[in-house]
């Protein structure tokens, strides 16, 4: 009984491969025909802006810490209004493995993945993207989110005027 099963198990796969030999290939001929990736496809990274049009990235270094191949580097800086932003922000797409850990780490939803996947280049430096190439003019996938309106340190709105905050305490008064 077991021998019969073994013989069947040896012969049947031949039948399967033979049938598949005459099926239509599922792969497409890439440069001539391009497939539309799914919305959650993990393609090239972009830096998005918040609904007010400001840069979302606060250069917190979490993406570069999460990156398993160390392809993200940046330097944080402070703007006059106290907003923390990236003085420069570089992603080396020749190293990037498109794992998406950086976008999961991003606390301000600034770093998002797009469906752009045609990044190959003969010139290595062409796939090293600087901030101006990464920064786009929209919110990307999360329309309404604005980190500075939820973090209560008074950058986007004066201190104590974000939703769910009381006005600043007058510490010189001991009255309740």
């Amino acid at each position, binding site marked *: 009984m077991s021998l019969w099963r073994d013989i069947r198990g040896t012969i049947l796969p031949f039948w399967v*491969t*033979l049938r*598949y*030999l005459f099926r*239509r*290939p599922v*792969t497409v*001929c890439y440069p001539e025909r391009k497939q539309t990736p799914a919305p959650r496809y993990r393609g090239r990274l972009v830096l998005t802006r918040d609904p007010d049009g400001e840069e979302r990235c606060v250069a917190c270094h979490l993406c570069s810490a999460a990156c398993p191949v160390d392809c993200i580097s940046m330097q944080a800086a402070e703007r006059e209004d106290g907003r923390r932003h990236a003085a420069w922000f570089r992603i080396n797409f020749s190293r990037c493995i498109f794992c998406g850990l950086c976008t999961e780490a991003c606390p301000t939803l600034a770093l998002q993945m797009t469906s752009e996947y045609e990044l190959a280049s003969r010139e290595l430096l062409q796939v090293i993207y600087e901030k101006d190439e990464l920064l786009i003019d929209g919110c990307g996938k999360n329309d309404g989110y604005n980190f500075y309106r939820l973090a209560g340190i008074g950058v986007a709105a004066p201190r104590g005027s974000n939703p769910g905050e009381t006005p600043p305490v007058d510490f010189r008064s001991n009255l309740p």
Partner: protein
Amino acid sequence: MNDVLLTFILIVIKLGLVLGTVLSLAAYMVLAERKILGRMQMRHGPNRVGPFGLLQPLADLIKLLCKEDLIPERADRWVFMLAPAISTVTALLAFAVIPFAAPLHLFGRTIPMVVCDLNVGLLYLFALSSLAVYGVALGGWASQSKYALLGGLRAMAQMISYELAMGLAIVPVVMASKSFSLTAIVAAQQPWPNAIRHPLAFLIFVIAIMAESKRTPFDMPEAENELVAGFHTEYSGMRFGMFFVGEYLNLIVLGAMLTVLFLGGWHGPLLPSVCWFLIKVLGVAFFFIWVRGTMPRLRYDQLMAFGWKILVPLGLLNILVTAAWLLWRG
């Protein structure tokens, strides 16, 4: 004098024919394998160079020739450089004794369609297929790399084990046809080919030559996920290419051997004999590719156990039964 010269010229012509056909066949075998495997896996396979990727072998050749030829610093230089040549040349030499068509009667002469019709052609064939292991073993040893060495050792052990089963599978064929000459063996397969007359020997022989050619499911010497690329890990450029070509030449040689010994050689209805020979060889080659597309790799201990504990005893039994039958038949 004139006769000798004519024979010599004929041999040279046959040699050229055989060499040209076999080498281009080997090159296109690579393409065919990639194409067929691709389709079996619902891919297109190579289709970029030329129509349907037909110029792919040429592109591969140019690429391999242009690649940097690396020799590892600690390698045994001469052996390292010689090894790929051994494996290619032994495969090519094997064609010398293979009859690829019925003898041609031309201008009153009978021209045997074999480069050299040795009366011990079968032994010659065996000798060469044993020699082929030197290419692999030396290449693995000379590379000074653990993966290559392991690959070479595996190849050696595997070849010695399956050579035995292969030899035992041929004995009944020789007993039945009473000759070592391949032409005689082919001639003896009328009307029924040996595959039908000696089915067990045929089965053992098919399995054994698959192992001899180091192809899936017996490709332990170059098991990618264990040994990087086995014995040719350290090879690059055309030296790697020679190993590669050698493998496909071997595929054709073995196909030809199977055709000659078991599938009735050039015999067949309607079509010219050389066509039948080619059809049979290509059919065997397709079968090998099909097996590669279907079967997973064995474990090393399974391989050795199968060879020694099943194939060899079966082969011996087969000889015994055939001998008894022949004796009974008188």
